[in-house]
């Protein structure tokens, strides 16, 4: 694997082909758990763990599993990793598990994971697949963190549970409620497109 290939995988996963901003996948956890920056990061990292594991295993078995049954086999692999993450988090980071509890089983149906298994891991070597899992996962984490931080700041005046806004700031409750997730995501998408257009114009 050459250096430029490595760079491409990283840039693609994290930004150019970002699961949330560009592919618009995994919207259920993206909108559902991002009521705070901490939740966003927690969900992002849990997804990253599943993504790296499933990418690695899918890539390892890509020549063993026949094409006809690859999708069910991938689903079994992904579901197993989600269960492992669910159990491990419940046992070792119980507080975070309590907050994210309902959404962890839903990682199974996060299209980003099946998408990467199908589009990338099943066609590439284990090393590339791990790298792709890490960069895609961190890109997802970054998106969830941005959304969570924006909602927490506007909706409760805090960041990571610390009061940031001045005391007389009246929190806009709507941002903590579900509609706020859509509105905040819209603005973040505008910002992402704006950056991309600016860098395209420079070239």
């Amino acid at each position, binding site marked *: 694997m050459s250096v430029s290939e490595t760079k491409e995988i990283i840039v693609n996963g994290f930004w150019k082909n970002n699961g949330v901003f560009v592919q618009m996948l995994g919207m259920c956890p993206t909108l559902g758990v991002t009521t705070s920056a901490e939740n966003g990061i927690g969900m992002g990292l849990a997804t990253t763990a599943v993504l790296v594991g499933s990418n690695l295993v899918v890539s390892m*078995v890509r020549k063993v*599993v*026949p094409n*006809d*049954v690859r999708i*069910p*086999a991938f689903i*079994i*692999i992904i*579901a*197993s990793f989600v*269960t*492992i993450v669910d*159990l*491990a988090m*419940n*046992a*070792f980071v*119980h507080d975070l598990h309590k907050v994210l509890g309902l959404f962890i089983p839903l990682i199974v149906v996060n299209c980003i994971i099946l998408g990467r298994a199908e589009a990338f891991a099943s066609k590439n070597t284990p090393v590339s697949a791990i790298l792709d899992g890490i960069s895609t996962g961190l890109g997802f984490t970054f998106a969830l963190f941005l959304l969570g931080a924006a909602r927490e700041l506007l909706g409760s005046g805090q960041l990571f549970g610390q009061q940031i806004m001045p005391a007389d700031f009246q*929190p806009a*409750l709507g941002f*903590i*409620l579900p509609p706020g997730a859509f509105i905040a995501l819209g603005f973040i998408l505008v910002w992402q497109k704006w950056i991309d257009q600016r860098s395209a114009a420079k070239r």
Partner: protein
Amino acid sequence: MPHFLKMGVILMIVGLIATAILAGVEDVTRGPIAQTQRQELLNSLAQVLPKGFDNAPERDFVQLADKRINRKAKPVPFYRSRKAGTDLGVAFMVTAPDGYSGNIDILIGVDATGTVTGINIVAHAETPGLGDKIFKNNWLGAFIGKNLKNAKWGVKKDGGEFDQFAGATITPRAIVNAIKRGLDFYAENQEKIFKTPAEESAK
């Protein structure tokens, strides 16, 4: 071997491997998960129970059912705290079915004289910013030291002595009334609650 059979066998093998791995992970995490759950239960009980017990209330419980505790009369555990064999108090969960949005689960701690020693809201889905003011300004602390004789049970609007909030009467009313019903039940069944031998813990 016909094609479909071969595919089936391959999927079966994938499933078997996944099952074996998951069984192993479950076995490793079962202990820590049970441990954290017990610790969590003990922590929440210790918050509401009278101080100074020397038994393990999370294991010393008896299950009782009544329509006043929750609408469906589902059995709830009454966790008993004792010191050197004397009965100190009981913690049990009442469910208010008449909140603004869904059930409100309230953990009540009472001492042997029927006086409230602590209130904790375990689960609720009240409107953020309105109904959840119950957690602010020590509103729940107002119940401590109150019993059926020394307090007028009800929100101020209903002629009781507990504050409601501007714009949110339903939530406080539901909580005050649920606690009252819980205390009524306790007063009538105190003997039974303390004297029934502990049930075999399911765990």
